[in-house]
Each structure stands twice: as structure tokens, then as C-alpha cells.
């Protein structure tokens, strides 16, 4: 009986989501009405009453606003502006150097910023026009940056990973460590794609890039040192144990603020913009988390979570089969949902399954973020593609950008296979800390 109610709840949730009810609201509404129908009004009120405060009043979650703030300050304060120039200087002799420089700059940006949208947007604005000027095919240039943006959520800090860590009750620091190798491998795969294209398709990447301005190495180094100092501060402090992953956000934000002040770019506008964007992101994100906790309780009470993990058990799926199912689910969801929603709607059902199958939750966190990030560049709803279309609309249409990411998507699928086949690739760095 309750199981029927739970399944009905899932169905209603999807209908509400399709009708554009905000994700958080849909989960709150379904959990409340669902628990009411199953167990009566008092338990329903109980779930709504205590969850929001208990979930939010969390020391671990405080890393989310602080890492967001650090990224916004670094960006608005111009700390990240020199990354692309520096990478360009280093890679000017390499075929496809400009595209590779964009990927390298994305990786650098990713180590101060936890969001793939922000990474794609800020570097897309700088790199795409230059790549097109140098003779790159516009759709490929746009695709490079849409894909490169996904590195933003893989290399720590990563907002997705913090929220995953809280939900899966696993160490955020360890997931971060795993994210380093997944992020760097992603960057490496993308670079291989660019090298191959540069070799095989002269019409996409010209052999002799045109119109490259001569860059003064000294000047470039002057532009890039603040961001290198910031990265060293955050990662150095994390590895040496001076502060925890939770505290690293605040220290990083303070460091970013100090560096922006040192370079003479600190003003009210930078502060205002950074704080307001942090606040807006937190408001829309945390409430989804609250809804997801309620929904988890609802699914648990109805027995649906147990039913699904039981069904998976009874099919006797082996590791590879289970992973194939999970990859397919997230690739499908990723087509239509943004990553936070997709993660928080599915974790309540998946976590019991993963626990039953003894799957390492640190590894899964990294793997999940990789899958969700693939969803950022798949049609019809690829958020990174949309944001690239917004910042570089004069160079490429939406279809062009989607065409441009195809090769990178293929590389992603290869990487996903590698991660499933060799979990140690991800688990090596975290294991050093255990």
C-alpha cells in the first residue's frame, strides 16, 4: 500500500517537474502530501517542520557559500583574466595550441571556482573570439569551451561534490581529492581531441594560426601570479592540514579578496556583485537540498527506496551491468535536468543500492559528478552549451555548439569507461589521505 503511494509520489514529482514547478517546491509538496496520505497529518508536519533547519545548520555545508564567494571574487576582481594569456604563451609552438590553452585555462579556473557554468561563461567570453580570429572553425571553438567548462565542477573546489558529500555522508575532502585526477584526466582527454583535430582537420584548426598578437612573457607572468598564489594557498593549506576543506572556502575567499586589493582592483562593485551572486546561488541551491532531504524521508517511509534496491539485488546485476544502468540513467536525466536537481532527485533511490553493492561512495561521488557534467553538454538541454551560446552568440548557433562538442563527448564516454574499469584512477589520491 505504502509502496504504491511512494511510486505515485515519484510519478507526481515528475509531472510537477515537467510543468515547471521549481524542483525544490515539487519535492517539498510531494513529500508533505505523500507522508500525510500514508501516515497522517502529524508525521507530515513533523517532516516539514524539522528538516529545513536541521539540514542547513551544518558546518560542512558552509563550504558552499564560501567557495562560491571565492570564485566570484576571483572572477569579478580580474584574478582569472590572465590565465588564458599565460597558457597561450606556454603553448604557442604546439599545433592547436590556442585550443589547448583554453582547456588549460579552464583547468586553472576550475581550481578556484566550483561551477562549470561559471567556468564556461568566463573563459568562453575571452577564448572563443580569439580562436575564431586565429582561424578556428567557430563551432569547434565554441564546443571546446562548452566542454572545457565541465572541468570546473570536477577539479576542486566543486559545489556539486560538497553537496554530494553531505548527502552521502562521505568525506568531502576525499571526494575533492578524487576529483583532481578525474578533472585532470578530462582535461587530458580534451587536449588529445584537440591535438588529433589539429593534425587531421586543417579546415577546423589552421596549421598556421593567424592574427596572434605577440605576447610579452614578462607582462603575462605579471597578470597570472595572483591566481597562482591563490591556488597555492588553497591547495597548500588543504594538503598540509592547516585548514580543512570546509574552512578552505573562507580562507580562499579572504585570500582572493586580499589579492584583488593588492592588484588594485578592489571596489564596491566587485564586492557587491560577488556577495549577491553567492547569495542568489545559495538561495536556489540550498532549498533544493531541503526538498531532497524530505523526499528521501518520504521514499524511505514508503518503502520505495528499499523496493528499488531490492529489485536491483534480485536482478543480480553485476558491477558492470549496474554501472551501465547508472550511466544510462544519468545521461538521460542530464539531457533534461540541471545537475543539482538530477543528483538530488536520484540519490535517495541510488544510495541504498550503492550501499548494498558495496560501492565506494568516494569513487561514486567523483563518477557521478563526471556523469552530471556530461549532461551539461548534451542536447537538448545542455546548460554549458546555452551559456556559451549566450556569451558567443555571434560566432555559433546553438546547433553549431552542440556539433562542436561531439568529439569531446566521445572522449568523455571513453573516460567514463576508464573510470568504471579502473576505479583506482580516482581512488589513488584519496587513499593517500586515509
Amino acid at each position, binding site marked *: 500500500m505504502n509502496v504504491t503511494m511512494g511510486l505515485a509520489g515519484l510519478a507526481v514529482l515528475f509531472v510537477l517537474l515537467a510543468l515547471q514547478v521549481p*524542483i525544490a517546491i515539487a519535492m517539498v509538496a510531494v513529500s508533505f502530501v505523500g507522508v500525510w496520505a500514508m501516515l497522517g497529518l502529524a508525521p507530515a*508536519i513533523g517532516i516539514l517542520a524539522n528538516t529545513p533547519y536541521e539540514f542547513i*545548520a551544518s558546518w560542512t555545508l558552509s563550504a558552499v*557559500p*564560501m567557495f562560491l564567494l571565492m570564485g566570484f571574487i576571483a572572477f569579478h576582481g580580474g584574478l582569472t583574466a590572465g590565465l588564458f594569456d599565460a597558457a597561450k604563451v606556454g603553448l604557442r609552438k604546439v599545433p592547436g595550441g590556442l585550443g589547448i590553452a583554453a582547456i588549460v585555462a579552464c583547468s586553472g579556473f576550475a581550481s578556484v571556482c566550483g561551477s562549470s557554468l561559471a567556468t564556461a561563461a568566463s573563459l568562453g567570453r575571452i577564448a572563443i573570439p580569439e580562436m575564431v580570429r586565429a582561424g578556428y572553425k567557430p563551432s569547434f571553438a565554441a564546443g571546446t569551451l562548452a566542454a572545457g567548462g565541465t572541468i570546473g565542477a570536477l577539479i576542486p573546489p566543486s559545489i556539486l561534490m560538497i553537496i554530494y558529500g553531505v548527502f552521502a555522508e562521505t568525506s568531502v575532502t576525499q571526494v575533492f581529492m578524487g576529483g583532481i585526477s578525474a578533472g585532470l584526466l578530462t582535461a587530458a582527454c580534451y587536449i588529445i581531441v584537440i591535438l588529433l583535430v589539429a593534425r587531421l582537420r586543417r579546415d577546423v584548426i589552421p596549421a598556421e594560426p593567424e592574427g596572434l598578437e605577440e605576447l610579452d612573457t614578462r607582462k603575462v607572468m605579471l597578470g597570472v601570479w595572483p591566481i597562482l598564489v591563490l591556488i597555492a594557498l588553497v591547495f597548500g593549506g588543504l594538503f598540509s592540514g592547516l*585548514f580543512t576543506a570546509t574552512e578552505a572556502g573562507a580562507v580562499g*575567499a579572504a585570500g582572493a579578496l586580499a589579492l584583488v586589493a593588492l592588484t588594485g582592483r578592489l571596489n564596491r562593485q566587485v564586492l557587491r556583485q560577488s*556577495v549577491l551572486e553567492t547569495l542568489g546561488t545559495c538561495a536556489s541551491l540550498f532549498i533544493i537540498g531541503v526538498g531532497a532531504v524530505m523526499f528521501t524521508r518520504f521514499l524511505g517511509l514508503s518503502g520505495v527506496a528499499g523496493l528499488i534496491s531490492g529489485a536491483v539485488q534480485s536482478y543480480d546485476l553485476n558491477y558492470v551491468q549496474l554501472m551501465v544502468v547508472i550511466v544510462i540513467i544519468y545521461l538521460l536525466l542530464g539531457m533534461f535536468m540541471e545537475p543539482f536537481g538530477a543528483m538530488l532527485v536520484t540519490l535517495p533511490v541510488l544510495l541504498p543500492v550503492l550501499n548494498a553493492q558495496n560501492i565506494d561512495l568516494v569513487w561514486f561521488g567523483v563518477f557521478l559528478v563526471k556523469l552530471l557534467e556530461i549532461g551539461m553538454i548534451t542536447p537538448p538541454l545542455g546548460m554549458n552549451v546555452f551559456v556559451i551560446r549566450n556569451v558567443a552568440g555571434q560566432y555559433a548557433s546553438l546547433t553549431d555548439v552542440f556539433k562542436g562538442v561531439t568529439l569531446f563527448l566521445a572522449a568523455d564516454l571513453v573516460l567514463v569507461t576508464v573510470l568504471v574499469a579502473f576505479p583506482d584512477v580516482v581512488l589513488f589520491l584519496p587513499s593517500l589521505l586515509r
Partner: protein
Amino acid sequence: MRQTLDRLVVRLTSGLALLGAVGVVAMLIHITAYVLSRNLLATPIPATVEIVSHYYMIAIAFLPVAWAERRGEMISVEIFSPLLVGRIGRINAIFVALVTCGAYLALTYTTWIVAMREFTARSYVISLSVAIPVWPSYFVLPVSFALAALIALYRGFVPAAPGAAK
């Protein structure tokens, strides 16, 4: 009339959001000072974890909810948006507003009960034998949710005038 109402909505939501912004800045300063003092002076600032979780986090997460609601920043799935246009789109917008308002009202009522319970008990948390009262922060939730409920209705039934300030 319309303009006064619009202005009131903006003032109220921005006011609460501003308090949330203060929370962001306070959190930044407090945690940084905590880390510095622990590493340089070997004396951590007492109760940092408790104040960050019970005050700053609550302020940052809930006070700007109505503000984000007004600016249309709440995340939804937009797969069918090409179908939800014109008249159907309007009807759906009203449906969404009603569901949203209902959910916020339920949250307002339930978190209000909790806030009153904590107030009656004058609840506190103990950090290194110091009692830190936490009951005041419980009132942030019903206040934030109540305003969000109003904003959701307002946005659903009074669509933004063309050219209205964001």
C-alpha cells in the same frame, strides 16, 4: 497602486536579502579569523562552528529565498517550455504559483511551530561549556517562507510589467 506594490515587494525582499548578505560577509570574516587564530596563536575562537551553522548558514540559506523567488532564480526543469506558451503558459504559471505558494505556506506554518517550541524552551547549544542561545535563528525560517509565499502568488498573478526593473 501597482507601482507602490511593486516597490514594496522589491524593498521587502531586498531587505531580507541584505541581511543574508551580511551573513555571507560575517561568515567569511569569522571562519578566516578562526583559522588564523588557531594556526598563528594556537587559540581557536570558541563557538565558531556553532555560530556559523546556527546563525550565518540559516541567514544565508533562507533570508534570500523570497528575493530569489522574485528574480525568478529558482531552478526548474525547462524541457516543455516551448509548449507552455500563450494561454496555456499563463494557466500553467498560475498553477505553478499556487503550488509554490501552498508549499511555502506549509513550510511557514510548520517552521513557525518549531520556532515557538524553541522559543519556549529558550534552546541553546553548548560549546566548551559556554551556552550559546540558538532559538532566535529558528524565527528566520517562518519569516522567510511567509514572504516567499506572498512573492510566489504575486509573481504568478501579477506578471512583471514590460520593462520592469529586475
